[in-house]
C-alpha cells in the first residue's frame, strides 16, 4: 500500500443510496456512511436490553440440539460462551491452539473485575459504571453496548461466586473490593493477583462439565486458518492440527470468534507469546469489517525492557497504583540512587498534574505522562526509559505485612525478574502494549458484518472506545459469553432458514486447499531471515511510529516500511521443518505474515483519525496542557474497514450517537 495525502475539499457523489465522499486527506480512500446497521434497539438506554431480550426470537428447547455452533478460542469469552450455550442445549465444538483450554491468556489478568454492585455503599451504580466506561473510552464507544455491559456486570459476580471462584473476602465473610484507575468508587472484585486465572478456571470447569456430558466437543492444538462461507453466511472453519499438520474442516450453523486481541503486532507486549490475530484477520479477509484497529492500549505499569534478547514484557497490576506513588527526579539527568534523592527533589507527576485522581488516572493518561517525563530526560534506570513506583509511604502507613497481603505475589514476580527487592527499592516501571480496543466490528447482537459470524471479548471492538479502564476486560469477556450471546445467537438461528452445511461441500474443500497452499508457500520461500527477526522488526516499526504517540509523517513512513517488510517477508523468510509435524517455527511464521498485513491497516486507521482520543494520541492534536484533543465534529465515528484484496480498504463509518451522556473534554484534574 502506498499513501498519498492531499488537502483538497471533499467531492460528493451519491451512489447506492449511500453517500460516497472522497476523503480529504488520503488519496483514493473510499468512504461509505450510513450502511452499517448496529441494530441498536429503540428506547431509553436503560431499557434497551430488557426490551431487546423480549423482542428477540427464541429457539425451542428441543430444537436447540439441532444446531451446531463453532467457538474458536477458549479464554474467558470462549469458555463462558461454550459452557452456557451447551447448558442451553446447543451442540458446541470448541477449538483452541493450546494443549488445554485453561492456558488461554485471560489467565494472566491480575488485578480484578469491575461490577456495579455498590457493596461499598460509596455511590456506585450501573449508571456510574456506564458513565465511567464511556468517559474512560474518551467517547468513542457505542453507548448502548457499554450500558448493557454495566448492567450485566452484577450478574457476572454472582455467577462466578456460584462457580466457586475464591474472591477476596472481608472478615465478616462478604466480598472485598479495591479501586482501579478511572473510577472514584471501589468496584473491583479480585482473587489476590490472580483474578483472571480464577475466572478462567471457573469458566473452563463449567465447560469441561459440558465436555463430560458430550454437549461440548473439545478440539485442542488446532489453529483456525480460514473461515468457510456458504451462500454469504459463516458456516465453518478450516484449522491446522498442530500435532499432525493436517488441515481439517468443520461445519456449523454459526461461528463465534473469541480469539482475543492483537497486541503482539508490536512484538514486545504483555500478551502471551501465542496470542495472534490470524483467526480474526482471515475472517476480515473473508468480509468481516475490522473496526478502530489503531486503538491499542499502552499499560503504564510494566517491567522495563532489559535487553535485546527480550521476548515479552511483564505487566504489574494496575492495582499497585492504589498504594504506590509514581515519581521521577525533578532535575534532568539526575542519576542518583532513589534513596539519595530527597523528597523535595522528586516530582510525583501524576499527583501534581491530576490532583483529583492522582495515581489512579486512566491508563492512557498515566502512560503518556510517564513517556513525557522520560522524553524530558528525567527517566530512571540504566536506559532512562522507566519511572519509579514507590511503596515506601504505603509500607510506613500500612506496615510491610499489609502491603505483602495486598501485593505479595506481584512483588515476588518483580523481584524475580529484576533481582531487585521492591520492599526496599522503588519499582521501575514503563508503559507497554497490553490490550487492543479495536477488533472485528460487531452490531448490538455481537454479529460481525458477515451473517452468522460473531465476535466476543477482546476480539470485537464494541465496549471500550478509545481506551479501556482497568478490570473491564474480564468483565467484557464474561458479559459477552455468559449473558449476551446466549440470547442473541438464538435470535439469529431462529430468524434465518439455514440449510444443512456439510464439509463435503466445495467451499470446505477449497478452504482446506487454500490453507494448505499458504503453509506450503511459507515453507517454500527458504530465505535468510527468521520469522522472529521479521517479528522484531515489525514490532519496532509499530512501536516507533504507531505507538504511544503518532504523527502524520511518521505514519506515512510506517506504511511504506510495512509495505517493504511484507514484500521482503514473502521473498526472504526462512522457515525450517515440515508441514506434517508439530512445527512451532511454521506456526510463528504464519502468524507474523498476518500481523504485517494488520499493521498496515492500523497505520492507515491512525493516519485517517486526525484527532487524539484515549490511547490514540496524534501529536498534531493536543490541548495546550498536553492532553488528548478530540474532534467530535469530524471523528465521532467507528472506523470499520472492509478488506479489498490488498488494495486500499474501504472505510465504513458508524456514527456514534450519545443520547444519554453529554460529551465533554475528559478531565481527571
Amino acid at each position: 500500500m502506498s499513501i498519498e495525502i492531499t488537502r483538497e475539499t471533499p467531492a460528493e457523489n451519491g451512489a447506492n443510496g449511500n453517500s460516497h465522499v472522497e476523503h480529504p486527506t488520503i488519496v483514493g480512500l473510499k468512504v461509505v456512511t450510513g450502511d452499517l446497521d448496529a441494530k441498536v434497539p429503540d428506547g431509553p438506554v436503560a431499557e434497551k436490553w430488557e426490551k431487546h431480550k423480549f423482542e428477540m426470537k427464541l429457539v425451542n428447547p428441543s430444537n436447540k440440539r439441532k444446531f451446531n455452533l463453532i467457538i474458536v478460542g477458549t479464554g474467558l469469552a470462549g469458555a463462558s460462551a461454550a459452557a452456557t450455550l451447551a447448558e442451553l442445549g446447543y451442540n458446541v465444538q470448541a477449538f483452541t491452539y493450546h494443549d488445554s483450554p485453561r492456558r488461554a491468556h485471560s489467565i494472566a489478568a491480575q488485578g480484578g473485575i469491575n461490577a456495579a454492585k455498590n457493596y461499598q455503599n460509596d455511590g456506585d451504580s450501573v449508571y456510574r459504571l456506564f458513565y465511567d466506561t464511556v468517559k474512560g473510552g474518551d467517547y468513542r464507544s457505542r453507548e448502548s453496548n457499554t450500558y448493557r455491559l454495566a448492567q450485566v456486570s452484577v450478574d457476572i459476580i454472582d455467577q462466578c461466586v456460584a462457580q466457586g471462584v475464591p474472591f477476596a473476602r472481608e472478615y465478616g465473610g462478604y466480598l472485598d473490593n479495591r479501586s482501579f484507575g478511572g473510577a472514584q468508587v471501589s468496584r473491583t472484585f479480585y482473587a489476590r493477583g490472580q483474578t483472571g486465572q480464577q475466572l478462567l478456571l471457573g469458566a473452563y470447569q463449567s465447560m469441561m462439565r459440558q465436555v463430560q456430558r458430550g454437549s461440548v466437543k473439545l478440539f485442542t492444538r488446532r489453529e483456525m486458518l480460514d473461515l468457510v462461507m456458504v451462500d454469504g453466511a459463516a458456516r465453518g472453519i478450516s484449522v491446522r492440527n498442530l500435532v499432525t499438520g493436517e488441515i481439517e474442516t468443520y461445519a456449523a450453523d454459526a461461528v463465534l470468534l473469541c480469539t482475543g486481541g492483537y497486541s503482539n503486532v508490536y512484538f514486545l507486549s504483555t500478551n502471551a507469546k501465542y496470542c495472534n490475530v490470524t483467526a480474526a484477520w482471515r475472517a476480515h479477509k473473508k468480509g468481516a469489517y475490522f473496526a478502530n484497529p489503531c486503538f491499542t492500549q499502552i499499560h503504564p505499569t510494566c517491567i522495563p525492557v532489559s535487553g535485546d534478547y527480550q521476548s515479552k514484557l511483564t505487566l504489574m497490576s494496575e492495582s499497585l497504583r492504589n498504594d504506590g506513588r509514581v515519581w521521577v527526579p525533578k532535575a534532568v539527568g539526575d542519576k542518583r540512587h532513589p534513596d539519595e534523592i530527597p523528597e523535595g527533589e522528586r516530582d510525583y507527576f501524576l499527583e501534581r498534574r491530576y490532583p483529583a485522581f492522582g495515581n489512579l488516572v486512566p491508563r492512557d493518561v498515566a502512560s503518556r505522562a510517564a513517556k513525557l517525563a522520560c522524553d524530558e530526560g528525567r527517566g530512571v534506570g540504566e536506559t532512562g526509559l522507566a519511572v519509579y513506583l514507590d511503596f515506601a509511604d504505603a509500607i510506613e502507613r500500612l506496615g510491610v505485612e499489609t502491603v505483602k497481603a495486598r501485593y505479595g505475589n506481584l512483588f515476588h514476580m518483580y523481584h524475580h525478574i529484576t533481582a531487585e527487592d521492591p520492599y526496599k527499592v522503588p519499582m521501575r516501571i514503563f508503559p507497554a502494549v497490553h490490550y487492543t480496543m479495536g477488533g472485528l466490528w460487531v452490531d448490538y447482537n455481537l454479529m460481525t458484518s458477515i451473517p452468522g459470524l460473531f465476535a466476543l471479548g477482546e476480539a470485537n471492538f464494541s465496549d471500550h472506545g478509545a481506551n479501556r479502564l482497568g478490570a473491564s476486560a474480564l468483565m467484557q469477556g464474561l458479559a459477552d459469553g455468559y449473558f449476551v450471546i446466549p440470547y442473541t445467537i438464538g435470535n439469529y438461528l431462529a430468524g434465518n432458514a439455514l440449510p444443512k452445511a456439510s464439509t463435503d461441500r466445495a467451499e470446505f474443500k477449497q478452504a482446506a486447499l487454500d490453507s494448505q497452499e499458504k503453509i506450503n508457500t511459507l515453507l517454500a520461500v527458504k530465505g535468510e531471515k527468521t520469522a522472529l527477526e521479521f517479528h522484531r522488526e515489525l514490532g519496532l516499526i509499530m512501536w516507533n511510529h504507531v505507538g504511544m504517540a503518532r504523527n502524520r509523517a511518521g505514519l506515512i513512513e510506517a506504511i511504506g516500511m510495512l509495505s517493504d517488510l511484507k514484500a521482503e517477508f514473502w521473498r526472504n523468510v526462512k522457515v525450517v521443518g515440515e508441514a506434517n509435524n508439530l512445527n512451532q517455527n511454521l506456526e510463528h511464521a504464519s502468524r507474523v505474515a498476518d500481523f504485517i498485513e494488520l499493521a498496515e491497516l492500523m497505520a492507515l486507521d491512525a493516519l485517517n483519525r486526525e484527532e487524539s482520543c484515549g490511547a490514540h494520541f496524534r501529536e498534531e492534536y493536543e490541548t495546550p496542557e498536553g492532553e488528548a484533543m478530540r474532534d467530535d465534529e469530524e471523528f465521532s465515528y467507528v472506523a470499520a474497514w472492509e478488506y479489498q484484496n490488498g488494495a486500499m480498504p474501504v472505510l465504513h463509518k458508524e456514527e456514534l450517537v450519545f443520547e444519554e451522556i453529554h460529551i465533554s473534554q475528559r478531565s481527571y484534574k
Partner: protein
Amino acid sequence: MATTTGSKPTKNMNLKLLVWRQMGAKDKGKMVEYKANDISPDMSFLEMLDVVNEQMIHKGDEPIAFEHDCREGICGSCGLMINGVAHGPDAGTTVCQLHMRSFKDGDEIVIEPWRARAFPVIRDLVVDRSAFDRIIAAGGYISENTGNAPDGNAIPIGKDVANDAMDSAACIGCGACVAQCKNASAVLFTSAKIAHLGLLPQGEPERIDRVLRMVSQMDAEMFGSCSNEGECEAVCPKEIKITNISMMNREYERAILSNKK
C-alpha cells in the same frame, strides 16, 4: 520464596546444553548437545532457548520444540526437567520465570521433558497433558448453570476459608508434581481442585461424587499412587501444599463411608 538474591551477576556466560530430541511420539529420541554462548544473566531460561533456536534455524536445523506462552508463570504451559528437577533450581518458580542468573559460566545443563506414562511425549520437550483436563471433566467443577446464581454476598464465606480455597485454587496445571514424583502420581493436582471446591459452601452438595469421580479418573489415566515423599510440593511453582492430599484422602474416606449408591 525465590532463592534470588540482591546480588546481580553481570558477566555473560557460556553453557553446554544436553537436550532431549524426539521427532514424534513414535521416535526413539536421544540426548543432543548444544552450545549456548554469550548468555546474559538477565535472560529468562526460555529466552536462552530462543537464542539457541534462532541459531539452529539459521543453520537450517529444526529448533527445539518446547511449550510456553504467557512467560509470566501463570498459564502452566512451560515445564522442563532441568538437571533432573522440574522447573529447575529455583523454588516456587516456573521455567519461564527462571533466570539465567541462577546458573554460572561453564555450567552443563540437562534439559528433558516431563517423564510420566500419563504424559506421552509429542515432540522434543512437548508432552500431552490432556489427562489433567479429563480429571477436571470428571468432577472438578460446581454444577451450576449460568443464570442460577443468587447474589454474590448471599453466602458469607470466612476470610480464612476463602484464603485457604484460594491457596489450593492457585494450581496452574503444569504437571511438575507428576514429573517429579517417582510414581508419576497426580494426587497433588487432583487434591488441589478437590480441596478448593470442597472448602467452599458452594462445593458442598457435590463433595461425595466429586472426589469419587476425580480419583477414579486419575487412576484410569494410569497415574501412579502417592507414597508420601513430598517431591511434588517441593517443585510446585505455586507452592501448593501436600496438606491438600490429606484433605483429599479424608474426603475420599468420607465419601466411601457415606456413599449410598
